[in-house]
Structures are given as structure tokens and as C-alpha cells.
């Protein structure tokens, strides 16, 4: 930094064309700002986070409170999204659902990374038998119907064995245990490629230990594609939670999960479609935002798409 500060006055006198020094993140940021869809996605995600935070301290009505007005009441000024079949305020429940969605998304991303990144780094860095073993497990895992295993896991872990109470956490665990392979495979590929690069070789020559090589040189350089992969894991987890709760196998009532709310409203949908409309719209918009942001990030981090 000090370097640049000294050089600057001279640069202004002589109008040399100097290539701007850009880091990966700077470059990506510059390109993502030009992608309008990705920006819209980011704004929606920030909005979702804000709503989730607000719902922790305040919702217009308690999310579980029944009979705040007539059941199946269509939207009114007092209740902008209407009331559901138990007379609960839908706006409050949508806000509570945002919190659940954020918990599921962030938690899943975290656990998927915790499983996938170390396995991928080990396989790619040590190659040989370690890689063969880990890759074999990854391939086996790809052959199983993931969501169905996760569904059984939720049931077994919470209802049958009572290991984890039925709630957000068990859903996150089930999702992560069946969907960690995408991250592991990606990190493995990155590590395989990066370990041959000159800067890793130089660090090795300088006497860096394996752990330092992995954490300080290989992992940071794999971050770009990793962020993209994780951005796509979040909507998958959110969709999984909605899917389970819709089937009645996810979060127990009266948890305001968007999937469960859609299931609640769907029996009265011919005369009160607003009950289904609110959670399905919220869910679709959230998924869309994450997909748009993910697409934008992918383009931004892709070195082939310079400028």
C-alpha cells in the first residue's frame, strides 16, 4: 500500500497507462455491479435478512396466535396478506418463515462446507489412496436419491431415535449429509490443479508445511468457485425444507415454515387462494434471488469472461 502512495504523484505528472492492480474480489465486485439481475438478487437477499432479523424481535401478531380475525379472511388493511384457516395473521407468519429460511440456508451452507471442504482438500492435495477412497465415497453418494435419504434421515434421527429434536437443525443435518459432494468434488478439483502451480511450489520450497500450504495458499485460491457453489447450495436447502414441511414431514406446526403454510392453505385454495399465494410467492422469490446472485457470481468469478 505504501508503495502505491509513493508512486502516485509521479503517475499523475507523466500520463503513463498503468494496468490497474486488481484482486480477485475487487475484480469480481466490479463485474457483478454491472449484472442487474445479480444485484436484484442481492437486494432481495438483504431484504430477506432484514425481515428475518425484525421477526426475531417483532411481528405484527405472534406467529402462533389463532383467531386474530375471521378464518380465511382475504387481505385487508389490518392484515395485508389476509388470515389463514386458523385465523392467524399471514404477514406475521411470512416474516417468521423468513427467519426459518435464513436459518436453514445459512446452517446448511455452513455444514456442507465443513464436510465438503476438508474432504475435497485432502483428496486433491494428497492424491493417491486418500483421493481414491474419498472419490469412491463421492461417486457412491452421487448414486443415491439424495432427497429421499434425507427425508428418511430426518424421520429416523428425530421421530424414531429422538437423537435430535424435530426442528431446523435436524433438517440442516440431513441435507448436509446427503449433499456435501458438490462442494467436496469442486474443492478436490481446485486443489488438484492448484497444487501444481508455481506459487505453491515456491511456498513448499520456502519450507511451508502441508497445513500451511493447504490453508494459506490453496484454499484462498479456490474461494471464487467455492462461493458460487455454496450460493447454489442455499436455495437447494431452502427448497428441501419447504418440500419436507409441505409433505408434513418437516417442521412441526405451528412453526411458520413457508412449505407448511402452503400445505395448510392448499385444502381451502378454491375459495381462499391468498393463503397459498403468500408463502409460495415468498419461497419462489427467495429461490430466484439466490439463483440470480449465483449466476452473477459465477460469471463474475469466471476468468474467461474478462470485462
Amino acid at each position, binding site marked *: 500500500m505504501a508503495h502505491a502512495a509513493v508512486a502516485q504523484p509521479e503517475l499523475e505528472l507523466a500520463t503513463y497507462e498503468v494496468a490497474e492492480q486488481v484482486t480477485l474480489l475487487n475484480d469480481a465486485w466490479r463485474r457483478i455491479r454491472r449484472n442487474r*439481475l445479480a444485484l436484484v438478487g442481492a437486494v432481495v437477499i438483504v431484504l430477506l435478512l432484514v425481515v428475518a432479523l425484525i421477526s426475531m424481535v417483532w411481528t405484527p401478531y405472534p406467529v402462533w396466535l389463532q383467531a386474530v380475525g375471521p378464518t380465511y379472511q382475504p387481505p385487508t388493511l389490518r392484515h395485508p396478506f389476509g388470515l389463514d384457516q386458523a385465523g392467524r395473521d399471514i404477514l406475521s407468519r411470512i416474516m417468521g418463515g423468513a427467519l426459518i429460511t435464513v436459518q436453514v440456508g445459512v446452517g446448511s451452507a455452513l455444514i456442507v462446507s465443513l464436510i465438503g471442504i476438508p474432504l475435497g482438500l485432502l483428496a486433491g492435495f494428497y492424491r493417491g489412496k486418500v483421493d481414491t477412497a474419498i472419490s469412491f465415497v463421492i*461417486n*457412491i453418494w452421487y*448414486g*443415491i*436419491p*439424495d*432427497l*429421499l*435419504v434425507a*427425508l*428418511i434421515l430426518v*424421520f*429416523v434421527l428425530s421421530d*424414531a*431415535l429422538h437423537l435430535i429434536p424435530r426442528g431446523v437443525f435436524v433438517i440442516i443435518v440431513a441435507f448436509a449429509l446427503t449433499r456435501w459432494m458438490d462442494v467436496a468434488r469442486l474443492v478436490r478439483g481446485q486443489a488438484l490443479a492448484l497444487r501444481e502451480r508455481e506459487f505453491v511450489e515456491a511456498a513448499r520450497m520456502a519450507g511451508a508445511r502441508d497445513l500451511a500450504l493447504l490453508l494459506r495458499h490453496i484454499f484462498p485460491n479456490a474461494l471464487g468457485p467455492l462461493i458460487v457453489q455454496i450460493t447454489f447450495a442455499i*436455495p437447494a436447502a431452502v*427448497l428441501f425444507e*419447504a*418440500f419436507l414441511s*409441505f*409433505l*408434513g*414431514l418437516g417442521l412441526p406446526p405451528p412453526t411458520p415454515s413457508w412449505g407448511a403454510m*402452503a400445505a395448510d392453505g*392448499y385444502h381451502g*385454495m*378454491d375459495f381462499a*387462494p391468498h393463503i*397459498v399465494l403468500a408463502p*409460495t410467492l415468498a*419461497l*419462489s422469490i427467495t*429461490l*430466484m434471488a439466490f*439463483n*440470480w446472485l449465483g*449466476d452473477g457470481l459465477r460469471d463474475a468469478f469466471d476468468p474467461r469472461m474478462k470485462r
Partner: protein
Amino acid sequence: MRGTVVYVGQRLILIAVTTALVSSIVFVLLHQIPGNAFLNETRQSPEALAAALRHYGLDRPLPAQYLDWVRGVLRGNLGESLVNRGVQITPLLIRETSVSATVGLFALLVTVGLGLLLGVIAALRQNTWVDYVASSTAVVGYSIPSFVIAIFGLLIFGHYFYIWTQGTVYYDPGWGDWTQVPVPAVALGLPYASYVARLTRASMLETIRNDYVRTAWAKGLSARIVVLRHALRNALIPVVTILGPLITGIITGSVVIENIFGIPGLGKEFVTSILARDYNIVIGVFTFYAALVGLANLTVDVIYPLLDPRIRY
């Protein structure tokens, strides 16, 4: 050719191993559940309970039960339903597979057909309003979960268009009756169709800039031949690679779609059995699904080299 046979053989073994492994894990997990499947039956004498346990072999140690189950599966016998006594699971699942497959194949048709069509049209008319409409539909459509499309499909066709449909969006058609399939199949296939459309558009755009495509135009070949035979065939390759995950997605998605429309297929059986704690059927359906997903992925990998002769095994 010989390479292909060896490859298919290896894959079949891997599928068998995977299926055996995951269904064994599910078997053991479900048998860890404390209590037994008959606890919620009311007014049951201890003798009747003991008889029921003996009937299903549930009074024996777990390893013996497991061996019995494996022996049964090898002979194609998945056992007997715990809830509906006397119902054999294998014929039940075979019948339900035919129903699920009818809907699933139609959904696949929607996915690939509609996806390719939209993708190719968008690529050929790049940066015109046609492209914008197709691309933005795809980018929105991909994010709408199939169960949301299903709910509104049901509302629109079962309720608002009652005069046309008499409220029947779906009834049990069995294998070969296509008339009631469209709405569930479209709901199941549409999100993936958007995905295929996006992928096709991108890969088409890359392909039509190639020299050999320009040569084909320059030779004066008709648009149909250039697009279909020169460009599309190469553009298809990345699309085929996602067919495997796509089929897995359709199979998984059918679980929720079948429950919404009340389609008596494997997916509905799966959820019903979990809720009814009919573990024998849960394990059976799961074994079916695992094998099905493996075989679907294998089929895709075998089709792949037919499309692209550069790929060999």
C-alpha cells in the same frame, strides 16, 4: 464395443453395491427404532402382539432378520406390508412403478422437448425480443418449485376450468392412458425445462459461431439441416451431461407431485408408508428408487458416446 460392455458391467456392479449399501443402512436404521410397528394398534392382547411379531419375524435378532431380508430381495421378494397384512410388496411396487413411470416419462418429454425448443429458438434469435422473452421465462421458471406449479395447476385446471375438466385433473390411468397425465407432468417437468433451455441456449450460442457451421451456411445448406444436423448435435452434448441429475430430480420431485395430485405411484406410497410407519414398504420403495436412479444415470452415460463419437470407454 467390448470396452462398452466392460464399462456397463462395471457400472452395473457399482449400482448393485450402492443399492445394497444404502438400502442396508436404511434397513438397519429403521430397525433401530424403539418399540415396534404395532404399538399404536388399540385393544391388542399380548398373544396377538406376539403372534404378529412372530409372523413378520420381528421377534428374531436383527442379524437374522437382515439375512432373511437379503435372501428375500435376491429372490425378488420384498416382504409383506406391516399395516395391510397379507399385501405382498413386490407386486404392489411394480404396479405403482408403472404409474409413476407414465408421469415421469411424460415429464421428461416436457423437460427435454420444451427446453430444447426454447433454448434453440432463443439462441438463433439472440438479442431480439424472442430471446429476451424466452430467456427471462427460463430464468424465472427455474426458481419456481414444482410443487408450487402443481398447486396452481390444480387450482387453475381443477377449479377455474371446472367446465372443461370436471375437476378431474388426474385419475388412476395405469400404464398407457395418457389423457390425464399432462398437468402433473408439466408441473414436474417445467422447472427442469427452464434449466435445459438456459443450458441449450448457452451451448448453441457457442456452437453456431464455429467455422464448420459457417461453412455449412456458405455451402448453401438449408437452415433446417445446418441447425439440426450441424449445430444442435454438438450443442446437445453439455445438455446430455445433466440428464442424469435431471432424471434423479424428476424421480425425487414425483414424491411431492404424486401427493398433491393423489397419483397412486411410488412417491405417494413412500410418504404414506413413512407416515403410517410401514417400514417394510419404506425399505422396499427406497430400494426401488436407489436402483432406478442408478439405472437412469447408466442409461444416460451409455447414450452419451452415441451422440459424441469422441467419447469412448
